[in-house]
């Protein structure tokens, strides 16, 4: 029955989507006549008596929250005719008011600019008494003309005021203005959404100004969960990153672009992975959960994205908000525990079509070579290994037996004799290329706005077979239907091709003996490289075309549609529907002669994944201002999210012809397959009230109830409340005259969010299948590997957040300081049980509590404002984050759980190991001490020359009780800074990220990596190892008998500090004269260097590591790269 209902419901949902989409399409064809868009579409109920036009506009401004920009002089001669408007669009009211005037209006960003339409081409220019006095005064005024433009061309409606006077002008529809001012006066240019500029006249008669959009403006509209708010009305902790900052770095995805740009957002390469198409690990305010995902929720245009960050073209993003505290994220309830990234993509604007093109191309190279041994160094290592592994067998390094007893392969002997050495890394690296092209058109009229863009991104890796390409197409349409209804559609579509995502010839290249060669005497590629115990296959074999093929083709559409209806004044209903469908086809084929198969049978694998998810939301908002001072906004939501994924995977080997690759299992043998299916649902109800009193005192209350299919019955539903309050101190009278403080806001919030970002079906327990045979009878069995957890429930995080937003010196310095304290309860933890429990896999349970507390500071400063194109400007953005996380409690009073690496009082990610205190030396004292500790001091297993660890518990032997907490991966602080300089059309931007403290783990240095075994079977990291005559105290002795150097893990911990210059960009905006000649609106060219420097990194500088940036341990993988690109941005 239930199944039936679910089925019919799903069917209904699908039908609903189809209906909405059809309606949207049909409405496109039925262009209704009178309708306004955006701010001008706001419905207003107002009545005018005979009053001044200025009073009327003020009333409208107060009631609609729409910001008007105008020159009061333009309005002063007009009065209104009494009239009552009953829910008419604002635009219509304005048209009525301006009917018999010279005035017109236009919408700029989010406000409305009123200007004198008759003043063109001369701008409105009025003189008053002050002005006359000036004329009579010391100096005669001069007439100044000029043009004001923004990033998209001329800007109408910009207010131009002579500083210290009442004299002013407003630019006309083509952006021109005329004003009179003293030759030594200053002109102040201001407009909503743009940074105010102060320009000295300096006897000039022509002053052209380019306005820069100002993300810090208090009137900016910020996207919040399920709606938008003025920045000044925000009560929670939200960082806003504008599109410009995101585009400072030519990036393949959002994660790369956002790195270092926002306080409290820690973005690092996952396990140091640098291959094309790799995605990053994003942490907001540290790690709180052990098993459940710590990745933030990404919401694109209002709908949660379940795909990868690679599925979004970063060039389509115009702004990004990061919601950090519980007040801001509580509205996302169970999915908000790790913070939320709200991504807004480009939409059309009213106006003539704007065509934009941007593109770049460049090349990349490795940030360095792994420091492995060359021929002679390796020869010595191997000899020392054999000497130590076979005590008494060799007389010393010069024992001739080494060259005749098979210790070295014949080819290695030859290399030793002729002084030949192969640098395998030289042979595998190549220059990578990256290119990106974006073409977009946007525009619209009163009723319809559209934006269409297409993009192409392609990156090839630093070795053959690695690449990532993305084709993207985006369409957005907003359509007004009649007076009350508006619909829109936004479709983001990407097709990505990833080649060689697991291609990693480095393992073999680093292990191959430098005394061997890749080609035999006839010039053919060899298979196993000489030496290396026939375990290292020639890495170049994988570069033979068709030998190693690995591709992932992923198509995705992320389409959202909405329908918005004004039901009554202030009352709005909105339906949001979003669907994401992503087929993903993966295949790999490795021929016999590849590093994957070492000359064995060729292998192939096919995987097909189909995932889809949808979100349906019904949102009701009510907005009302009572008695002009009490502003109330209510948001109510009902939503349903569902996600489904299916996967099949087939493997086979011994493929008849290499040309078949992975396309047809019929030509292979031993076909095996697996499949998987998973589905989850979340049903939510949410209500939020924002209350503001006179823009001074703000209060937000949120309540959300979520039900998740992934939790145990009885625990599925939970309510997540939050409350926040803010005080705009600068709105108070006592600060209104402050010359220093332009903005001061105090905020405090408390709330709870949840986390169910776990795989489905974990409450049910599971069996693992296993194949077996009885003679020729093949059978499949199953055995329990996990047990059901009928108690599984939400993981909750409660956050107390306090923040100060401030602006100093007329907004020259803006900043935010946040302090927070997060408590996570019912921590979702995969508990590994004792083996005797008979349950081999970990069980997901709610065990323990963690806390995170921290301080975040963001500052942006206009160091040198710059006045127009020709003067010097300099701005700085800076952020720093301090986060301290720790486990505060484990269940049953347990204080340390070594198996699951949980220690009360320590951060998640604690490093628990033996403490290395040096190398056992071949001295009598050390030998005696070693013996006393029960250690072997003779034979191939002698500890002399190996890593010496401390007897921490002083029990007279080295045992498990000597392990201790060595540190954790938690840094002391992290952050980033951006400096932008401008002069004469040139701009120079430097983006840097830094990280101080914390331990990183580099598995390269562990024996398990096979490049630091000290065995001599394989090439080794080039280290100054211990020998009986070299008594150095850091790296152990080589030993041919030992694959694993004991305690080699202690070699892998390093201070993770670094300062990385992420990018340096030099750009040039071509002057208008040239731009005009090619009929363009703007044209910028630039060159960028990415990752040019890594500074202050002990890992890189002292230990010859490549890149200390990693979330999780570093492995033997594609080295980090430097990229150099050249690009162009153009609008037509």
């Amino acid at each position, binding site marked *: 029955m239930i199944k039936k209902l679910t089925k019919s419901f799903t069917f209904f949902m699908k039908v609903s989507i189809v209906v909405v989409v059809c309606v949207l399409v049909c409405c496109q064809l039925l262009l209704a006549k009178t309708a306004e868009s955006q701010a001008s579409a706001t419905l207003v109920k107002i009545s005018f008596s005979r009053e001044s036009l200025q009073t009327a506009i003020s009333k409208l401004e107060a009631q609609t929250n729409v910001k008007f920009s105008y020159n009061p002089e333009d309005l002063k001669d007009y009065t209104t005719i009494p009239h009552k408007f009953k829910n008419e669009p604002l635009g219509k009211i304005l048209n009525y008011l301006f009917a018999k005037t010279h005035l017109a209006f236009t919408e700029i960003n989010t406000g409305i600019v009123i200007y004198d339409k008759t003043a063109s081409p001369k701008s409105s220019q009025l003189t008053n008494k002050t002005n006359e006095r000036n004329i009579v005064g010391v100096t005669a005024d001069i007439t100044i003309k000029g043009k004001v433009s923004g990033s998209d061309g001329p800007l109408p409606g910009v207010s131009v005021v002579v500083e210290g006077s009442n004299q002013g002008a407003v630019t006309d529809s083509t952006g021109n203005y005329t004003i009179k001012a003293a030759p030594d006066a200053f002109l102040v240019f201001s407009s909503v959404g743009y940074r105010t500029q102060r320009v000295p006249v300096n006897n000039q008669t022509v002053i052209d100004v380019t306005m820069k959009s100002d993300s810090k403006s208090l009137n900016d509209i910020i996207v919040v969960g399920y709606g938008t708010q003025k920045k000044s009305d925000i009560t929670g902790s939200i960082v806003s990153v504008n599109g410009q900052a995101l585009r400072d770095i030519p990036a393949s995805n959002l994660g790369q672009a956002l790195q270092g740009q926002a306080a409290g957002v820690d973005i690092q390469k996952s396990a140091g992975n640098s291959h094309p198409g790799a995605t990053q690990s994003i942490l907001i305010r540290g790690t709180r959960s052990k098993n459940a995902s710590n990745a933030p929720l990404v919401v694109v245009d209002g709908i949660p994205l379940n795909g990868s960050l690679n599925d979004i073209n970063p060039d389509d993003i115009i702004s990004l908000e990061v919601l950090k505290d519980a007040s801001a994220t509580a509205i996302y309830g169970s999915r908000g525990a790790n913070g939320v990234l709200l991504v807004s993509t480009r939409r059309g604007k009213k106006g003539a079509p704007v065509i934009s093109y941007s593109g770049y191309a460049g090349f990349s190279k490795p940030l360095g070579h792994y420091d492995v041994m060359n021929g002679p160094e390796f020869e010595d290592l191997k000899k020392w290994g054999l000497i130590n592994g076979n005590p008494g067998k060799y007389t010393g390094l010069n024992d001739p037996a080494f060259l005749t007893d098979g210790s070295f392969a014949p080819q290695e002997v030859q290399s030793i004799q002729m002084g030949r050495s192969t640098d395998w890394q030289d042979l595998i690296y190549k220059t990578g290329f990256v290119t990106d092209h974006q073409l977009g058109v946007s525009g619209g009229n009163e009723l319809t706005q559209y934006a269409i863009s297409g993009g192409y991104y392609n990156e090839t890796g630093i070795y053959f077979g690695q690449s990532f390409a993305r084709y993207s197409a985006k369409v957005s349409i907003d359509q007004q239907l009649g007076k009350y209804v508006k619909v829109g559609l936004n479709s983001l579509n990407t097709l990505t091709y990833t080649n060689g995502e697991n291609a990693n010839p480095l393992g073999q290249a680093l292990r191959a003996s430098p005394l061997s060669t890749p080609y035999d005497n006839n010039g053919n590629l060899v298979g196993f490289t000489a030496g290396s115990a026939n375990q290292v296959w020639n890495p170049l074999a994988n570069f033979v075309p068709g030998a190693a093929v690995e591709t992932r083709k992923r198509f995705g559409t992320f389409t959202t549609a909405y329908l918005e209806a004004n039901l009554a004044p202030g009352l709005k209903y909105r339906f949001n529907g979003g669907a994401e469908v992503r087929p993903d086809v993966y295949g790999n084929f490795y021929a016999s002669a590849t590093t994957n198969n070492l000359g064995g049978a060729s292998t192939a694998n096919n995987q097909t994944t189909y995932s889809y998810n949808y979100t349906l939301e019904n949102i009701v908002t009510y907005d009302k201002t009572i008695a002009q001072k009490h502003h109330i906004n209510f948001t109510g939501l009902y939503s349903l999210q569902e996600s489904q994924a299916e996967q099949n995977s087939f493997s086979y080997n011994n493929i008849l012809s290499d040309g078949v690759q992975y396309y047809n299992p019929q030509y292979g043998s031993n076909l095996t397959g697996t499949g998987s299916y998973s589905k989850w649902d979340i049903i939510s109800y949410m209500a939020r009230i924002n209350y503001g009193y006179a823009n001074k005192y703000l209060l937000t209350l949120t309540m959300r109830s979520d039900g998740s299919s992934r939790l145990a019955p009885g625990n599925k539903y939970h309510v997540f409340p939050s409350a926040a309050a803010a005080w705009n101190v600068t709105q108070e009278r006592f600060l209104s005259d402050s010359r220093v403080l332009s903005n001061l806001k105090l905020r405090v919030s408390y709330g709870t969010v949840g986390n169910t970002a776990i795989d489905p*079906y974990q409450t049910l327990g599971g069996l693992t299948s296993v194949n077996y045979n009885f003679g020729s009878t093949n059978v499949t069995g199953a055995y329990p590997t996990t047990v059901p957890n009928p108690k599984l429930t939400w993981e909750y995080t409660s956050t107390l957040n306090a923040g100060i937003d401030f602006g100093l010196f007329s907004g020259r310095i803006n900043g935010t300081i946040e302090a927070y304290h997060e408590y996570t309860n019912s921590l979702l933890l995969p508990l590994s049980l004792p083996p005797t429990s008979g349950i081999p896999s970990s069980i997901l349970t709610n065990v323990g509590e963690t806390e995170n507390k921290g301080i975040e500071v963001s500052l942006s400063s206009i160091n040198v404002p710059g006045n127009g194109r020709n003067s010097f400007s300099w701005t700085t953005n800076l952020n720093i984050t301090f986060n301290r996380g720790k486990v505060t409690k484990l269940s049953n009073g347990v204080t340390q759980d070594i198996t699951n690496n949980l220690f009360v009082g320590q951060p998640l990610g604690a490093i628990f190991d033996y403490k290395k205190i040096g190398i056992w030396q071949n001295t009598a004292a050390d030998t005696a001490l070693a013996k006393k500790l029960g250690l072997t001091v003779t034979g191939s297993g002698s500890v002399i020359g190996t890593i010496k660890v401390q007897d921490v518990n002083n029990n007279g032997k080295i045992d498990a009780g000597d392990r201790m907490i060595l540190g954790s991966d938690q840094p002391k602080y992290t952050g980033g800074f951006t400096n932008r300089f401008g002069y004469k059309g040139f701009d120079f931007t430097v983006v840097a990220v830094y990280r101080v403290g914390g331990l990183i783990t580099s598995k390269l240095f562990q024996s398990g990596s096979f490049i630091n075994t000290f065995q001599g079977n394989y090439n080794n990291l080039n280290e100054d190892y211990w020998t009986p005559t070299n008594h150095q105290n850091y790296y152990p002795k080589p030993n041919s008998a030992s694959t694993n150097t004991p305690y080699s893990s202690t070699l892998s911990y390093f201070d993770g500090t670094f300062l990385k210059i992420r990018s340096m960009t030099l750009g040039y905006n071509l002057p208008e004269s040239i731009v005009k000649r090619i009929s363009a609106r703007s044209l910028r060219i630039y060159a960028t260097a990415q990752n040019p420097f890594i500074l202050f990194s002990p890992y890189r500088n002292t230990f010859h590591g490549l890149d200390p940036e990693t979330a999780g341990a570093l492995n033997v993988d594609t080295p980090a790269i430097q990229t150099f690109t050249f690009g162009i941005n153009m609008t037509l």
Partner: protein
Amino acid sequence: MKRIYIYLCSCLFLGLITTACKKTLIEAPKSTLTPAFFATNQGFQSGLVAAYAGFRTIWGPDTYFEMTVPGTDEFIAGNDGNNGLVKYNSNFNTADGTVATIWKNCYTYINTCNGLITNPPAGLDSATKTTGIAEAKFLRANYYFILVQFWGDVTLNKTFQATPTTSATRAPMADVYNFIIQDLNDAIAALPLSPQTNGVLPGRATKAAAMHLLAKVYLTRAGSSAKQPDDYKNAYTNAINLITNVAPAGGLKLQQDFGNVFAQGNENNSEILWTVQHTSTLAYNGSPTQNNSGPDNLLCHLFVPKYEVQPGMQRSTLYGRPYIRVVPTHWLTDTVFSERVNDQRYNKTFQTMWLCNNAASIPNWPNPLPAGAPAGAQPGAPKFTVGDTAIWMPGYAMTAAQIASYRYQVIPPAKYSIALSPALTKYFDTKRPDQNSPSSRPIIIYRLAETYLIAAEALFMDGRTGDAVQYVNAVRERAAYPSGNPQAMDITAGQLSLDFILDERSRELCGELVRWMDLARTGKLLERVKLHNSDGKNNIQPFHVLRPIPQTQIDATITGSPYPQNPGW
């Protein structure tokens, strides 16, 4: 128009609210099975299959192998061998991953057996239920027997673990042995007679196998601190009953030719009591990609020396993949197998000759020719051709001049090395799909020849030397086939000793994953390692007769009392 939209919106809104409320948040997995499946008949059968398949993770990989083959008087670590466990040096500590793997796997599948034994589905017909439970008990006894031999007192789970626990205790060894013996007695009562019985598929548990194991369990307990007065008696009673009654009735008997016991394709022969199965249908053979991991049978690689880097040689499927984990001790090749005239087993156990298979690496005669070069040697000409002998280990000492007179490499015992020594051939698999693949040969776990030796040992230890001799001689006489003199192989009661029985076990069973236990059971581990094992002789200490409780167990036992470690570790 406007009204239409409003209606549309309202309908949509109301529709969603009302219908969605009915949407349930129930999970219905489709691609995975949950424990509820075990309550079905099919689930019972599949659980039993898994309990069998668990042994692929014990016998086959190099973990159990490292714990039983090297570190004894028979084998030492080879060139790529273990540098801790098998040498008893201080690198072998409680963190050792090898012992942890065996420990964990045993308990995982014991739990599977417990589920089958304690909660059989109600709908199961009684015949299936009876044999099924008997099989599960036989398997569980095997898992516990492994645990108790390596670790002594161990956790004794008698029932299915349905809820997660983070505490554990160790039961006295005596309890564990009693539990094993009870299981085996129950199994013997219900299992089919023998692997040769009609309808019994290869690899299935049988009465014969259970009796063999029970004899061995008694014999082992007799050598432990949990010994009972009649253990030896019970051991030989079971063994003799198997040899004299059950085996003939079940079509079991010693193979005529020792060489046939391990012949490829003959793993279901008349001597075999129980095997862990593998198949050439690779999808069912072990790890999904047959990459020599997890449940794969690697025994074919582990004894193979580094022949492939020798002149004239390269890796081949025929000669195997040289994992070279172990090489035989000189005691094994030179002393135990010194008699090779009547005893045919040395030549049927070891490979001592490799034929050239790589033209590209055939060496040329130097110019001038070395002293004593054979007639026909031409300076600059290849020493031999593909198909000729490339390496030969004569098994006896030779002078340098004698060696020089051969065209190919001759390696007398004094030149055996950890890289190149005679290779045990019992597990060779020449039919693998490629030179790197794991084996698809079933692994012989119990065979009738060992039953004879168990009977002999139990009788001898019980003071019945005269009765014991016949069982030793039965095995020895067979070893003479075809060209030796069986009567010359016979020994007398006066010659029989515990050491002789251990030596005989080496000749018959060397490399068959039992040696470490044989030495531990007979109390000869320290003595023999000190005498014959060059790796461990300076390191082994009395506490090494038990394996360390894995640190993973101790670390994960976070509630209740701490999990006790074995003494000395």
